[in-house]
Structure formats: C-alpha cells, structure tokens
C-alpha cells in the first residue's frame, strides 16, 4: 500500500494526531474518562497503522522490536516500583499519600506514575502482538 499516494498522505496527516489524542487521553485520565490502557491502545494502534501503510520494516526501523519487548516489562516495573516506593516510605503497597506533603497531591502523583507504567506496557504489548503475528512465516 506504500505506493498509493492517498493512503500515504492521509496516514502522515493522521498519525501525529493519533499520538496527540493518545497523550490527551493519558493525561486527562485524572479528570475525566481515559487513562493508561486506552491511551496505550491508541499509541499501539498508531504503530500498527504505520506498519500497515508503510510496511513492517519501516515501522520496525522507527519502533525497533527490541525496544518494544523491553517496554512490556518496563511498564510493569514502573507500576511495581511505585508500590515498592510507597512501602519504603512506610505505607502500604501502592498507597500514594506519602509522595507529597499533602496526601491529595501524593495520590495525584502516584496515579500519574502508575498510569504511565500502564501506558508503556499496553502500548508495548499491542505493538509486540502485532509484530509477532505479522512477522511470523516471513
């Protein structure tokens, strides 16, 4: 499909907005519907969209499989790390209150970090699933 100019131009127009929208959903998750999972799926969808239009090799040049495979455990590490950090600060696992002077702010920072971890893992997982299925049998 990389020969079809309509697809190529349309894809290049859309992809930045997909990413911006994903980040909007990610960071607006504190105040409205949204969060790491939805945003991660959108970011993964962006990579998949790119790969469908420009080919798997092109996509893997931009988002190498090694990085993606590392993203999956890295996100979980962020999540568990936040939990361990709150334990080290003397609270129960995943209690975000001690992250700031004010518990309410602490909760906000904590959920931001955890959602970042979710984003990393989910976008990585979606991409890695696509890569493995498409790369199979080549």
């Amino acid at each position, binding site marked *: 499909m990389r020969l079809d100019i309509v697809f190529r131009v349309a894809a290049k127009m859309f992809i930045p907005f997909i990413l911006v929208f994903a980040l909007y959903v990610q960071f607006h998750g504190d105040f409205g519907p949204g969060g790491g999972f939805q945003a991660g799926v959108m970011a993964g969808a962006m990579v998949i969209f790119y790969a469908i239009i420009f080919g798997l090799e092109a996509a893997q040049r931009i988002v190498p499989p090694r990085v993606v495979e*590392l993203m*999956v*455990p*890295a996100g*979980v*590490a962020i999540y*568990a790390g936040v*939990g*361990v950090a709150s*334990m*080290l600060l*003397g*609270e*129960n*696992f*995943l*209690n*975000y*209150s001690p992250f700031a002077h004010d518990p309410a702010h602490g909760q906000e920072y904590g959920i931001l970090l955890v959602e970042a971890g979710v984003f990393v893992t989910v976008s990585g997982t979606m991409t890695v699933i696509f890569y493995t299925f498409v790369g199979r049998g080549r």
Partner: protein
Amino acid sequence: MIADNLPALQVVLPLLGAVVCAMLRRGTLAWGVALIVSLLMPLCAIGLLLEVLENGTISYAFGGWPPPIGIEYRVDIINAFLLLLVSLIGAVIMPYAKSSVEAEIAPENHAWFYAIYLLCLCGLLGIAITGDAFNVFVFMEISSLATYALIAMGRDRRALLAAYQYLVVGTIGATMYVIGVGFLYSMTGSLNLVDIAGRLADIENSRAVMAALAFLTVGISLKLALFPLHVWLPNAYAYAPSMVTSFLAATATKVAVYLLLRYYFSVFGVAVVFEELPVTEILLFLSLAAMFGASIIAIFQEDAKRMLAYSSVAQIGYITLGIALANQSGLTGGIVHLFNHALMKGALFMALGAVFYRIGTVKIDDLAGLGKKMPITMGAFVLAGLSVIGVPGTVGFVSKWYLGLGAFENGWWWLAFLIVISSLISVVYVGRIVEVVWFRPISQAARSAKEPPLGMLLPTLLLTAATVYFGFDTTASAGIAGRAAELLLAGLR
C-alpha cells in the same frame, strides 16, 4: 516494616522477579533470579503462618484503602497453610528446573520461561491471599494465562493442542466464575468476601444467590478438574515440560480447591450449601466417580505421565470427598490431603521428569528395567507411589485415615469401605509401573540411562522424604489442617 508488608511482598516479589527475568533475556541469569525469588517465598509464607498462629487473622489494606472499599489481603490459617504449600513446592522445584529446562526448552526461550513461571506463581499465591472476589478472578487469569503458555512450551507438538484445549476450557471456567461474582455483586453491592458473607445473611435463598453459587461451583470445578470436568487435565499434564507438570500437579488444582472451600464455608456458609442444597450428594457422587472412574482409566494408560495425570484426577476426588463430608474429621482429611497430594504428586512427576531427562521418553514399556539403572530415582518413585496407594507410614495413609474417620462420623460405614476399595485400584496402576521398572529386562531406551544430576535428584528425594516424614509426624500437617477445618466449620471468621 518488612513484617507489616509481608502479605504484599508474597505477591509482589514474584511479579518483580518476572519483570527482571523478562528484562535480562539471559537464561542462566533469569534462573538465578527465579531461584532467589522462589527461596524468599517460603520465608514470607512462614512469617505469615507464624503471625497468624500467634495473633489471628491478618488484614492488609491495599493502597491504604480500608476494606470493604479497597482490596483487602486477608490471611487466616487456611490460606497461610496454602501459601506455605505453594511457595515450598516452588522453592523445591527451582533447583530441579535448571537441568530439566535446559534439556526440554529452546535456549532463546529460557528467560521467558522463567518470567512466565514466576507470573504463574504470582497468580497462584495471589488467589490464595486475596480477600476480594474480583481480585481472585484477575489472579486466576494471570496464573491460567501463564499456565497455557508454559504448557505450550512442551517439546511434543501435541502440547499446543493441549494448551489450546485448556485455554478454551479454562476461559469458560473463569468466565463462569465472573458470572457468579457478578450475581453476588449485584445482590450485595460488595466484592469483599467477608463483607459479602455478612450481607448474604439478610438475603439468603434468593434465586440470584443460588445462581451465583451454581456458577461459582461450576467455574471453580472446571479449574480444579472435578471428575466430569477434568478432560483438559490429562493432556495438559502429559505434554507440558516436566518441571511445569510437577509444579502444576502440586499446586494449581490445590489453589482451586482452596477457592471452593472459601466460597462454600466462609462466604455462603455450611447451612446454605450443605443443609439446604443437595451439594453433599452431588459432591459425594462426583468424588466417588473420580476415585473409581479416573483410577480405572489410569490403569490402561500407555504413558506414565498420563497415568499419573488420571491418578491426580482420582486424588482430587478424595479432597472433594472431604469437602462433601463437611464434618471435622472429613474436612481435616480433605485439607491434609491437599498438602499430602502436593508432596507425593510433586515427587512422582519429578522422578518421571528425571527419567525423561535421561531417556527422553516416559512410555511405560520404555521404562522397563530402569530400576537397575536409576535405583535412587526409581526408589523415590516407588516410595511416593506407596503414598498414592495409602500404605501406613506414608502421607497417603494419614489423609485416608481422616477421611475414613469422617465417613464413620456421618455414619456412612460403606463410604469407608469404598475408600479402601478405591485404594486397591491404585495398587494396580502403581504396581504396574513397579513391575515394569524393577522386574523386567532392560529396554532399548533405558540401556544407557544413569542417575540424573544432583540438582534434579536432591529435590525429588527431598519431597519423597517429606511424604514419609509427614506420614509419621502429623502434628504439623494434620494439626494445622485440623485447626483450619475447625475454623471453616465455625463459619464466618
């Protein structure tokens, strides 16, 4: 600080270990990480058990949100016992895993294998420790998904079919479980098991609650391979890598049994489940069907691993029989058999794994004469086999003794008689292997066999020794099981 957070650490450490394994991407290093985590787990579990024995139930509020709003980790004697069992088996099996995994799994997959194994461990421990109905589902799926992947790593291509079959059945089971939880949630508005139990008292016998009980029973029974729902188990155990088979046979079904105990006794209560509904009759019938049906099928198997898998189904029948009896001795027998069966099936499958490591097959005909080549391994196999039969002086006898007592307590002398008869069937299938291994000329496959490396031999011997030790000294196993049974029968904690 560590002592306060033990309940969280019990689940978080394997999760962190899995992350580290997946990042390392080097087989040996990943094994090292998995070993460290697996050895830390029993320490956590022992700490929790001692704490529970001394100060009673531990409640740990996740994220500092007090229950019933937040997720609660709740440890009492029953799940502390189970946590110890699962983590001990995990710790014993890890040194064994190294040689076995190197022989059976492609080198580039080793790190992933250990990562997935730790996720499976994390899921099983999570089911055991959490006090939240939906959290149980999440951990159930973590452990199940990890299990499907582990089974699919078997060398035989039929392992893929077995994993697929298990995936379909396991997902149906888990979904049934969620349906049950959904009904409970819409009736009580709570997901905390203790809270649900309290609120159910007001709305007993509503039809939705009965539907919830039915869905939960079927869903959990699929996971624990209750007799007619066991079809996924023999293939899964037969084609999975040896180390996975030993681990799953010793732990996965036990955790599901625990879940059934928890729902029957702590959430719905003895009065509803056993007195108003015909659960006793149904469970009794299915347990007997398992004890006889599966044992008889086991006799006719060609593959030793498959034979033991059917024997597992039969042994699960004894555990559910203890639940069906629902009296002090019977329940003690069921819970202690949970522990004992884990020891003996762990030992048996590990011995077979060692055989597979040396001769690359576990077809019963190929085992001929192996007793002369691998006397220690096969000796351990025979000892653990005696446990399956229930010979006095082994753990199998202890469980059957309590089950028999439970049967007499209900006045069902015929049941005690049936327990003895079903043990005689297991004499046939264990005896068949003993005959082949010790009294036949050495087969072609077994000609060049020798004892497995120490890393595999010692864990096998350790578990075998445990089956004999706990056959004589029952204060720890049956003592704790008795207290757990008391607690369950007393109803709400």
